[in-house]
């Protein structure tokens, strides 16, 4: 699964994207898996209220299922306009 990071999430984790082998069933499971990897991930995912997630390029919530999903992205609240 392709996992993308944007803005300060990208900066904390240190890469803009990576391929992740996972059997996580939901976004929340994936977050737990990643946060368990290394300190930089734990730091990036320490406050889920400060994060937003997109599943296959659609905004989703952390309970979204990951069955058949190819791309998950994590980022802070958007600041367009």
């Amino acid at each position, binding site marked *: 699964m392709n996992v*993308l990071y*944007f*803005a*300060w999430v990208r900066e904390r984790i240190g890469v803009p994207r990576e391929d992740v082998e996972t059997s996580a069933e939901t976004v929340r499971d994936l977050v737990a898996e990643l946060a368990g990897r290394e300190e930089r991930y734990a730091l990036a995912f320490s406050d889920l209220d400060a994060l937003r997630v*997109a599943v296959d*390029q*659609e*905004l989703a919530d952390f309970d979204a299922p990951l069955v058949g999903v190819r791309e998950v*992205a994590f*980022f*802070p*609240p*958007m*600041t*367009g*306009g």
Partner: protein
Amino acid sequence: MRVVLQEAPFDLGAESAAFARGGRDMGAIVTFTGVVRDFPDRSLEAMEIEHYPGMTEAAMTGIAQEATARFSLGDALVIHRYGRLRPGEMIMMVATAAAHRQDAFDGAAFLMDFLKSRAPFWKREITADGAEWVAARETDEDALARW
């Protein structure tokens, strides 16, 4: 409807004039333009705008389609830039054409509210003291609730 995502500057005058020419059966045209503010009290060197290629275009298009349907717009234009912008440069613009002025105003305000909080852009301000991500404001999220 036209949705444009680009790094290059755009020409507000030319875009406004072209948009107005397109909708002669519409009585009301509203434009909104966002500019990188040049704060007097601190030296902003640049604003960097990051985005999510692929999702950004889809989100912009979806928001423009929603606005067009909800406010019976005869036409809508959304231009949003990314990359490094200097103070005074234009970041983005929207334009709406409608039969009546309230729809044109509401359509433009709706586009702005959703582009602000639902299109995957992130702004970072570069000053002499370093770089800082612009935080989303709660009022921006609250603004969505009125629609």
